[in-house]
C-alpha cells in the first residue's frame, strides 16, 4: 500500500508541475505572443487531458509490468532466504524486468546448493569422526593393557574393558570417581610430580613415566603401571593417563622362585663346605688315626647325602617353574589340531582327529608348528598320507598320539628330527621347541599290529579343572570426556547447575510398607547418571536377604521370593556395597522418602551414612505437572515419553526413574530451577 501512495504522490506531483508549466506558458503566450485566451485554454485543456491520460496509461503499465513484479521479487527473496531457496518467483509473463527473475533464481539455486554442501560437509565430517571414534573405542576395548584417563584431581574420565576386568567386582570403579579409591596413591602422585617438575627442566618433552608397580587397594593385585601426562586442549590443566598390566601372577611366581632359590642355596652351603673340609683333612693327612678317619668318612657321607637332597629339590622346583615363564597360554587341544589339519590337508596329508575337550598350557604357535612338522616327517618316513591324532589325559600331561599304518620311527631318526628347524621358525629346532614345553617325543609299535604311534606329551592346563565363566559382551570403553574436569568442591554444590552433578538413581523393593513394623529390604539397585546421561554398564543390582519370610502379597508385586534371596547378602553388607557404589553422588528416587526410611533404619548397624542430598522425582512431578492428579511412575513415564520396560523389578524401575529425572531436569530448568539449591527448595514445599 505504501508504494501505491508513493506512486499516487508522484502522479499528483507530475500533475501539479504540468499545471504550473501550463499556466506559465499560457500566460507567456497570452502576454508575449497575444494568443487569444480561448485558444490558450483550449490548447491547455487538450494538452492537459492528453498528458494526464498518457501519465495514467504509463502508470498502469509500469504498475503491472514493473512495480508489481518488483513487489513479488521483494517477498520472493524473503522466501528464498528464509524458507525455500529453490522457490520460483511467481511473476506473470510480460514484465519489464528482463532477466532479473532468472538471475535471482540462479542466485537462489547457488545459495541453496552452497548451504547443502556445507551441511553435507559437516555431517560427513561428523560421520567420519563418529566412525573414527567407534574404531578407536574398539581398539582401546580390545587392548590387554588397562587404560584409565583421569583429570588433575584423579577423577576418572575414561577407562577400558581391561580395567573393568582388573577391578572386577569393585563398585568403586566408576566415571567421576577417584582413582585413589582403587589404587595406592603414593606411587601415582610421585610419578606425576616428577613428570610435572621435569617440565621445567631438561626433560620437558617427556610425558611418560618409567614403569612402576602399583598395588590395588582391594584386590591385592600388582599392576605394572606407567603414568602419562596429557595436557588438555588449551594446556591449562594436566590430565593424566595410566596404562597398566596385571603382573600379580608373574610377580608372585618370581618372588616365590627367588625365595625358594635363595633358601635352598643357603641350605647347600653348609654340607658342601663340611664335605670340602673333611676331604681336605683326609687328603693332607694320609696317616690319620683310623677312628678319626671313620668320623670324617661318616661326615662326608652325611653331608654328601644332604647336599644331594637339597640339590634335587632345587632342580625339581626350577623345573616346575621354568615351564611357566615362557609365553605360554591356555589353549584347547582340539582347536590346535583342527587348525593344523586344515593346513596339512592343503599339503596332501589327511589328519583325522579323535579328541576330547582338553586344555593344554603351551605356546600355541610353536605347538601348532610342532604338530605340522611331525605330521610331515611321519609322512616322509613311513610313506603314509593319512594319520590319526588322539588326545589322552594323563596325570599332568595331555598326550597327543599320532597313529599310522606302518613301522614306528626309530630313535635315531627322531634324534635327527630334533636337530631340524621348525617350519615357520628361523631359529627354533624341534628339540628346542620340545624343551620349551618340558616335552619329548617317542615312537613305538601300536597295540594293534601293523600300526605304529608317536607320542607327544604337553603340560595340561589348570583350566581343564575350572568351569568356564560366562563372557557377556560388554562396552569396549567407558568414557565421558565431556565431564567437567576438576569438579567443584563440596561447599559450592548447592550452586552447581543440576546438569553438572553426578547422581545415583536408586530403587528398593521391600517385604511391605512398614519399616517400623518389621518390613525389610529385599532388593537394592542403582543407576549412575553423569553429565545428564545414564552410564551404561555401571549399575548396581543386589538382591538382599531380609532375614525373614517374604509375604506372598509382596512377591506378587516385585517377583522376589524366599528362594531367590537365600544366598544373598544381608542388608548390612548390601548397604555397605551400595554405599561404595554411590560414593558422593546425589541420590534420586521416586518417592525417595519411602526408600530412605528403610535405609536410615539400618545406617548405624551397617556402618554407612548417606549424608548427601536426596531428590525425589515424585515431588518434582507434583511441582511440574500440578494440572493432573496422576503421578504414578507409569503415568509420569507416559507423559514424558519414557519407554516402560522391566517394570516392578528394582533395576527396571531405577532405569525408568532415571530417564524421567533426566527429562525433569530440562523441565525444571525451563521453570527457572537451575541449581541444586533451588531444586531442594522445591522439594521442601
Amino acid at each position: 500500500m505504501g508504494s501505491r501512495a508513493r506512486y499516487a504522490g508522484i502522479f499528483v506531483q507530475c500533475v501539479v508541475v504540468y499545471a504550473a508549466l501550463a499556466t506559465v506558458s499560457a500566460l507567456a503566450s497570452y502576454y508575449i505572443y497575444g494568443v487569444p485566451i480561448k485558444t490558450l485554454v483550449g490548447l491547455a485543456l487538450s494538452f492537459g487531458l492528453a498528458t494526464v491520460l498518457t501519465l495514467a496509461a504509463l502508470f498502469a503499465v509500469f504498475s503491472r509490468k514493473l512495480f508489481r513484479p518488483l513487489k513479488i521479487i521483494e517477498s520472493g527473496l524473503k522466501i528464498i532466504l528464509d524458507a525455500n531457496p529453490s522457490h520460483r518467483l511467481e511473476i506473470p509473463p510480460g514484465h519489464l524486468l528482463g532477466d532479473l527473475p532468472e538471475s535471482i533464481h540462479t542466485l537462489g539455486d547457488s545459495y541453496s546448493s552452497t548451504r547443502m554442501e556445507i551441511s553435507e560437509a559437516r555431517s560427513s565430517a561428523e560421520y567420519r569422526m563418529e566412525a573414527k571414534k567407534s574404531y578407536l573405542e574398539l581398539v582401546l576395548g580390545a587392548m590387554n593393557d588397562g587404560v584409565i584417563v583421569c583429570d588433575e584431581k584423579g577423577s576418572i574420565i575414561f577407562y577400558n574393558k581391561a580395567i573393568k576386568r582388573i577391578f572386577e567386582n569393585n563398585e568403586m570403579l566408576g566415571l567421576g570417581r577417584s582413582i585413589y579409591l582403587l589404587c595406592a596413591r603414593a606411587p601415582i602422585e610421585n610419578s606425576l610430580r616428577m613428570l610435572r617438575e621435569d617440565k621445567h627442566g631438561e626433560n620437558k618433552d617427556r610425558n611418560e613415566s618409567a614403569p612402576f608397580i602399583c598395588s590395588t587397594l582391594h584386590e591385592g593385585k600388582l599392576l605394572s603401571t606407567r603414568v602419562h601426562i596429557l595436557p588438555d586442549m588449551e594446556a591449562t590443566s594436566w590430565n593424566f593417563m595410566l596404562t597398566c598390566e596385571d603382573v600379580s601372577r608373574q610377580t608372585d611366581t618370581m618372588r616365590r622362585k627367588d625365595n625358594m632359590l635363595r633358601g635352598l642355596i643357603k641350605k647347600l652351603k653348609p654340607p658342601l663346605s663340611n664335605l670340602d673340609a673333611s676331604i681336605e683333612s683326609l687328603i693332607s693327612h694320609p696317616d690319620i688315626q683310623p677312628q678319626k678317619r671313620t668320623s670324617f668318612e661318616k661326615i662326608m657321607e652325611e653331608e654328601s647325602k644332604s647336599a644331594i637332597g637339597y640339590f634335587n629339590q632345587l632342580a625339581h622346583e626350577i623345573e616346575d617353574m621354568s615351564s611357566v615363564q615362557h609365553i605360554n597360554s591356555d589353549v584347547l587341544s582340539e582347536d590346535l589340531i583342527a587348525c593344523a589339519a586344515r593346513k596339512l590337508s592343503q599339503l596332501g596329508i589327511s589328519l583325522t582327529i579323535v579328541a576330547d575337550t582338553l586344555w593344554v598350557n603351551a605356546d600355541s604357535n610353536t605347538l601348532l608348528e610342532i604338530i605340522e612338522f611331525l605330521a610331515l616327517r611321519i609322512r616322509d618316513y613311513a610313506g603314509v598320507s593319512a594319520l590319526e591324532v588322539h588326545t589322552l589325559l594323563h596325570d599332568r600331561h595331555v598326550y597327543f598320539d599320532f597313529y599310522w599304518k606302518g613301522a614306528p620311527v626309530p630313535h635315531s631318526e627322531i634324534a635327527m628330527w630334533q636337530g631340524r628347524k621348525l617350519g615357520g621358525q628361523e631359529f627354533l629346532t624341534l628339540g628346542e621347541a620340545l624343551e620349551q614345553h618340558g616335552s619329548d617325543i617317542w615312537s613305538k609299535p601300536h597295540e594293534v599290529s601293523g600300526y605304529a604311534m608317536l607320542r607327544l606329551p604337553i603340560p595340561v592346563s589348570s583350566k581343564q579343572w575350572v568351569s568356564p565363566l560366562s563372557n557377556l559382551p560388554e562396552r569396549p570403553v567407558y568414557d565421558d570426556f565431556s565431564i567437567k574436569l576438576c569438579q567443584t568442591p563440596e561447599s559450592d554444590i548447592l550452586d552447581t547447575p543440576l546438569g553438572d552433578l553426578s547422581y545415583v538413581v536408586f530403587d528398593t523393593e521391600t517385604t511391605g510398607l512398614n519399616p517400623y513394623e518389621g518390613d525389610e529390604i529385599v532388593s537394592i539397585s542403582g543407576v549412575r547418571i553423569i553429565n545428564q546421561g545414564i552410564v551404561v554398564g555401571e549399575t548396581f543390582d543386589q538382591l538382599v536377604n531380609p532375614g525373614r519370610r517374604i509375604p506372598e502379597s509382596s512377591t506378587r508385586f516385585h517377583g522376589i521370593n524366599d528362594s531367590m534371596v537365600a544366598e544373598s547378602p544381608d542388608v548390612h553388607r548390601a548397604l555397605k556395597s551400595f554405599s561404595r557404589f554411590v560414593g558422593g553422588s546425589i541420590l534420586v528416587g521416586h518417592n525417595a522418602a519411602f526408600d530412605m526410611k528403610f535405609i536410615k533404619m539400618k545406617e548405624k548397624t551397617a556402618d554407612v551414612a548417606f549424608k548427601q542430598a536426596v531428590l525425589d522425582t515424585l515431588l518434582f512431578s507434583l511441582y511440574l505437572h500440578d494440572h493432573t492428579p496422576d503421578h504414578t511412575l507409569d503415568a509420569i513415564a507416559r507423559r514424558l515419553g519414557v519407554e516402560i520396560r522391566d517394570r516392578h523389578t528394582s533395576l527396571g524401575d531405577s532405569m525408568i526413574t532415571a530417564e524421567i529425572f533426566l527429562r525433569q531436569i530440562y523441565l525444571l530448568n525451563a521453570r527457572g530451577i537451575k541449581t541444586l539449591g533451588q531444586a531442594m527448595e522445591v522439594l521442601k514445599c
Partner: protein
Amino acid sequence: MAHRILIVDDEPNIVLALEFLMQKEGYEVRIAEDGEIALKEMLSFKPDLVILDVMMPKVDGFEVCQRIRTEQSNSEVIILMLTAKGREVEIEKGLQMGADLYVTKPFSTRELVQKVKETLTQKRQQ
C-alpha cells in the same frame, strides 16, 4: 656263574666308582664309553644287566635301549637307565623305550648297587 654287567656312560669318574663297587660284589664288569661301543659289547659280552646313561654323544641312551629291544636277540637283558634331568616325561619315555628301571643322577652308588643286586636275584629266581 657270575652275572655280567655292562656299564655305558661317558663320564669316567662315575664309571670308576661303579666299576669298583660292582666288581666288589663279584660281578663281571665291562665298560662302554658310547652307544656304538655299547651295542657291539651287547653282542660280544652278552651282559645280564646294562647300566645305561641317557646323555651320551653320537648315539644316546634312548636309541641304544630301543635298538637293544628291537634289533638284538638278547632282549631279556635288564636295562637300567641313568639320567641327569629326571623329568616326568623323560622317565616315561625311557620306560616306553624299553628300560626296566630308571635312576636319576645324582644318586647314591651304594643304593644303585643294592638295586642291581635285588633285580638280578629276582631274575635268577624266575
